[in-house]
Every structure is written in structure tokens, then in C-alpha cells.
């Protein structure tokens, strides 16, 4: 066990070096198309306009910049976090993939093996999405209309289905807690926006409530 801890420290420090490098490259790549189009058309937004754009973005999504990486961290760990916040689709693709990779290899949450497996799962999901999105970007416009209507209708339900299945898997480890937290989160989604709190904060509030519920549950079950 101690040897594993040592190895995982080494893994983390390599992941950190690599991650920071790729994050920096991604940050540059992120602006290349905008700079290119502005250069060939000669239409550059002014500094004031850029600031205005940035403010609009931050106002609409700024809460997410902080809340989302923090929320997903326990599931995807550090190496996964680097990839997730460049590649996106974290809730619906990355986290389920990480979760399944851990599950089939019988990992216990929080162990070094679980950390490696979740990273393997996220890498696998990145390969899949890059290949699929690139394929459909090249030929998709022609292929999509050929899909049967029933299949298209099925795809309309991708999100509730993947999240329903993931939740079943997470909750099966502790069913009572899973059900209580699900109910509290559903209540949160209904109530929080009505209190005038920005919608982006609902996730954070629900997580805090979930942790408080778990604390109460922990106190109650440990005393017995």
C-alpha cells in the first residue's frame, strides 16, 4: 500500500508537468481561429469590445468556471481535471467513462488504483469523442438525414438515460443516502431559482447540502 502511495505521488507530479504544458498549448490554440479570421478580414474587435465580450461571458458562465472543476474533482482527480476542462462534456461523457473504468476493475474509491483507472477511462472517452465528432464533422451532414426516425428519437433521450444509469450505479453503493440526496437535489433545482439565487449556483448548493446530509448520516450510523 505504501509503495502504491509513493508511485501515485510520482504519477501526480508527472501529470502536473504534462497537464500544465498541454493546458498552456490549449489556451493558445483556443484563440488561433479568432486571430486568423480577424487578420485576414481586418476586423479586429477593439479592446473595449473584447472586455465587453469577456464580461458577458463571465456574467453568463463565470460561476461555472469555478463550480464545475471543483464539483467534478473527486470523480476525475487531477490528471482527469486537466483533460476535462479542455475537452468538455464532463458530466455526460467523461465522468461516466471514468466511473465505469473503475467499476469493472473493482477499484475502491480514493485508492491509487482508482485514480489511475479513472484517468484511463477519461483518455478512452477522449479518443472516442474526438474520433466520432471528427467523423461526423466530415461526413455527418450527409449521413444524419439517412438515420431512421426512430433512432433519431432515441438519441433525444441520451442525457436523461446516461445520467439515470450513472446515478443508479453511484447510489447502489449506498442506496439510502442516494435516494435522500436525489430528493434534496430535485427540491434544490425547484426551489433555488425561485429564491433569486443565480441558477449556476444550484449545483454548488446541492453538493453542499448533500455533504451535510452525509455528515448527519455518518454521525447517526457511527454512534450506533
Amino acid at each position, binding site marked *: 500500500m505504501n509503495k502504491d502511495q509513493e*508511485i501515485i505521488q510520482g504519477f501526480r507530479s508527472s501529470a502536473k508537468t504534462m*497537464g500544465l504544458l*498541454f*493546458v498552456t498549448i490549449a489556451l493558445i490554440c483556443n484563440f*488561433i*481561429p479568432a486571430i486568423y479570421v480577424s487578420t485576414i*478580414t481586418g*476586423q479586429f*474587435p477593439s479592446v473595449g469590445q473584447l472586455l465587453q*465580450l469577456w464580461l458577458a461571458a463571465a456574467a*453568463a*458562465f463565470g460561476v461555472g468556471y469555478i463550480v464545475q*472543476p471543483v464539483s*467534478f*474533482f473527486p*470523480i476525475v482527480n487531477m490528471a482527469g481535471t*486537466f*483533460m476535462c*476542462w*479542455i475537452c*468538455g*462534456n464532463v*458530466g*455526460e*461523457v467523461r465522468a461516466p467513462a471514468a466511473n*465505469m473504468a*473503475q*467499476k*469493472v476493475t473493482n477499484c475502491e474509491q*480514493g485508492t491509487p*488504483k482508482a485514480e*489511475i483507472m479513472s484517468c484511463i477511462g477519461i483518455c478512452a*472517452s477522449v479518443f*472516442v469523442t*474526438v474520433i*466520432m465528432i*471528427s467523423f461526423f464533422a466530415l461526413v*455527418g*451532414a450527409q449521413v*444524419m438525414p439517412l438515420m431512421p426516425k*426512430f433512432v433519431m428519437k*432515441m*438519441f433525444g*433521450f441520451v442525457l*436523461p*438515460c446516461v*445520467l*439515470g*444509469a450513472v*446515478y*443508479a*450505479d453511484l447510489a*447502489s453503493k449506498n442506496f439510502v443516502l442516494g435516494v435522500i440526496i*436525489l430528493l434534496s*437535489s430535485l427540491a434544490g*433545482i425547484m426551489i433555488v431559482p425561485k429564491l433569486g439565487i443565480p441558477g449556476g449556483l444550484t449545483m454548488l448548493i*446541492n453538493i453542499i447540502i*448533500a*455533504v451535510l446530509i452525509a455528515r448527519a*448520516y455518518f454521525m447517526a450510523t457511527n454512534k450506533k
Partner: protein
Amino acid sequence: MEVKDIMNSPMLWVMSSFMIINIFLMALMFFRLCLKNADKMGIPREECMTGFRSAVFTSIGPAFAPVIVLIALMAVLGGPTAWMRMNDIGAARTELAMSAIATGMAGSSLEAGKLTMLGFVFALWGMALNNSGWIVIGGYGAPSLNKAVEYLRDNFNAAWVKLFMAAAALGLFSTLLGNAIIKKGVVNQKNLFAAIVSFIAMLIIGRIFKGNKKIQEFSLGLAMLVGMFCAAMFM
């Protein structure tokens, strides 16, 4: 030069490809790093590949979500931009909302035929600025988040930290699930039905085929398919 010509120009495909190459290389390097460290820990290669296969199969279904938006986004902002933005960070509705805000600021609109060159330029800058929020905070913040988790592990009761992490994950996924079912305070019954079927299917697969490793590898994908099929069939 017309905006339509630039939107789908070969050079813009090239300019947009850097991000995707970077993403692919990153996953490849991390995958190698994982395998190397798994070897050191004595985790058999076969086990790593089992995890890998399962994650691949699990991702194929949900990956259709960005693919469908890709097709929609291609019509509005052109192939290269849609390709790049669906591969990198930013959910479908985020990208659409951001480009709508940005084009509106340029006095243009995303509606077909109404997008001006300045509107397109603003959309590109707007999405780049918005995405850098996640890249900067998520990317550069990852090491500090790791420190916070290590601090938790070192200073608190191990059983509690485990429960804490599990509860945080439950809180997160119940919110995501809730958002997929409840739209603007109203329960979408079709989505609710789909989620319940997948939920039950996953539990059943987990119980009945507990010992069958091959089926467990595909369980999430299977549960999803069952839910999607039933919802499309009965709703």
C-alpha cells in the same frame, strides 16, 4: 469575401485543427503515463485494457449528444468552428448561447443568412474568451484542488472522507440528472420515464449479472440503450 466562404474555408479547418491535435496528443500522453504507472503498481495490463474497453463502450452512446449539436452548429457557424468547439470545452447550449450573445453585440444574428462577417468574428472571439475561463481555472487550478483533497485525506477520518467524496458525487449527479428532467421548473415526463427505465435497468444489470465481467463492462451502455429504446417506443 463572403462570410460563408471563410466559415468553411480550408485554412480555417487547418486553424481549428490545432486544438484537436493538442487534445488527442494530451489523451495519448496521459494514457501512456497511466499504463506506465499501472505497471509499477503491479496492475496487469489486461486489467487496464478491461477498464479502457469499458470506458470506450460507455462513451459511444453519450458522445452522440455533442454529435447531434455538431450538425446543428455546422449549419450556423460552419464546419471547422463547430468541429473545434464540440471537441473542446463548452457544452452545446453554452456555445450557442455565447455565440448568440457575441453576434448580438456585433449587431448581427445567428439566423441563417443574417450572420455578418463582424458577427462571425465576434462569435469566434466570444467563444474563445468564454472557453479560456474553464481552461485557466480548471487547468491551472487542478494542482491546488489536488492539494485540498490531499489535505482532507491526511487530516480527517478516512471513512468520513470517503463518504464526503461519495456524497459530493451524488449531489453533483443528482443535480445533472434533475436538470435533464426538470426544465424551467416543470417536470418533462418523457425524460423522467427515460431516466427511470435506465436507472432500473442499471440496477438490474448490476444485480443479476454481478459475476459476469463482460456484461458489467458494457452495463452502462446497455442500461442507456434500454432506456432510450423504451422512451422512444412508449413516449
